[in-house]
């Protein structure tokens, strides 16, 4: 984490950069470009800009790429000392990239950003090729002459209300898992097939005025934050993101378990609360599934009704 403070005559700003990549997404006229230009103009002028690292507005098209290439070249030549020095040089920068910069359209951007060890701030309303989450997206707030960054509405909650419809990003094992988990709660569960269809699925369900929950991977929303942003404040739509979910649904033991229950038609009225961890699963899978289940019961209090007892 690092912070930048700007004390210009007509504008003051304090920006906290928590992660490597920060995206500033906001309406027009909020001061995004002005702050960036002033930071680039004053650079590290003492008394005006306070920053742990030098600040720069990305200028050349291939700057990040060239620098990343230099580091890689030196490392490939076995020159670890020089590559470490160059990596440290890169690490010492905070780079601002404005929305119209052609570098944002380059296919090598993601790879170069991953090699870049400093902080990158991108001003954009549409971005899909870089890994970022909702916690990396900020808007600019201001009061008189003072500006600061504020994270956008966090779509994720600590506890969720019971929905009428659940939209799952996954169409195979993840869908099976949630059908088993919410099996006897009278909730419609379907897959939107992939994250690109989330908006369409929400729109379709909204027509019937239903309470909707969207379940996706934590990175699944990142590329669609700007397309789903208007739903983050919608009281009828909840978003739930899970991490490290793939390992359990891709686990052969879980697959075998699900297939076994489906083949034996145990899925009729069966839900995961019927699961006996000791007898139905191997110990390793059982232990990790218990952790995931505990997390789900904590987040979804409506699971803890008398009709859905916790797994034995």
């Amino acid at each position, binding site marked *: 984490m690092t912070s930048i403070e700007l004390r210009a005559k007509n504008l003051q700003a304090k920006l906290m950069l928590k992660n490597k990549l920060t995206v500033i997404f*906001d309406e*027009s006229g909020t001061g995004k470009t002005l702050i960036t230009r002033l930071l680039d103009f004053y650079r590290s002028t003492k008394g005006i800009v306070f920053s742990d690292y030098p600040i720069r507005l990305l200028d050349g098209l291939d700057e990040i790429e060239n620098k990343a290439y230099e580091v890689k070249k030196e490392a490939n030549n076995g020159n670890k000392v020089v590559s470490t020095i160059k990596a440290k040089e890169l690490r010492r920068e905070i780079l601002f990239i404005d929305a119209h910069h052609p570098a944002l359209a380059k296919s090598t951007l993601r790879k170069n950003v991953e090699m870049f060890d400093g902080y990158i701030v991108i001003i954009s309303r549409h971005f899909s090729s870089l890994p970022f989450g909702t916690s990396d997206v900020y808007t600019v707030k201001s009061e008189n002459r003072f500006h600061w960054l504020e994270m956008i509405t966090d779509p994720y909650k600590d506890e969720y209300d019971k929905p009428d419809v659940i939209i799952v990003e996954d169409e195979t094992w993840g869908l099976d898992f949630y059908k088993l988990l919410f099996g006897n709660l009278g909730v419609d569960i379907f897959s939107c097939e992939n994250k*690109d269809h989330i908006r369409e699925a929400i729109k379709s369900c909204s027509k019937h005025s239903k309470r909707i929950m969207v379940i996706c991977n934590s990175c699944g929303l990142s590329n669609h934050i700007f397309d789903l942003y208007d739903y983050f404040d919608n009281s009828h739509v909840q978003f739930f993101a899970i991490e490290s979910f793939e390992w359990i649904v891709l686990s052969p033991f879980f697959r075998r378990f699900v297939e076994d229950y489906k083949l034996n038609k145990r899925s009729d009225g069966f839900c995961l609360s019927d699961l006996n961890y000791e007898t139905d699963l191997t110990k390793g899978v059982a232990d990790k599934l218990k952790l995931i289940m505990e997390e789900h019961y904590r987040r979804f209090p409506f699971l803890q009704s008398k009709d859905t007892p916790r797994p034995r």
Partner: protein
Amino acid sequence: MLNIWLGNCDISVYDMDVAFEYYQEDGWFTDPYVIGMVKDVDKTELISHRLAYDYMGDPMNPRELSGGVKALILLYMIDNIIIDGNMMGNNCARWILDIGKRRDCYITLCYFLNFEEGIKSDDDFECRLLNVDKVIKSFDEYDTLFGKLLGKHGLEFEYWRNPPENFNCIMERDLSQLYEQTED
């Protein structure tokens, strides 16, 4: 009529500072419609081509206007131009719709610009969605089509390969790398 292409286009104007500097004329800054737009979006009072007062009442050069309001002015003033709508925020939506009622204009969009903020009544929304070549008269239908196109083509939507031939563009850019990714 407002014409929207959901996706990207090589000849859309994306650098508003450069384009505004290139195209601007002194008379723009005393046009009442432009003055109203700048006041609403940037909270700035336009006086002339050399002077404006910002939201705090401090003097500033109109060159420092936001990219969004420059895009709106270009959309309003220049013929045969495609504006990259990604440079405009939701607070520009009502002005985009209004300009579309006054003249033919073209924008590209890669994100969900919430036109709902600019709609006064149910029949206030009208645009031609060029991807499906259809005139849309309700925001709800636009929202639905947006979701379908988002799902069908992925994150970067569609590449407008055949924009109108007589449209001018003062800046070049190459989006081919971007579309190589989406075509895979």
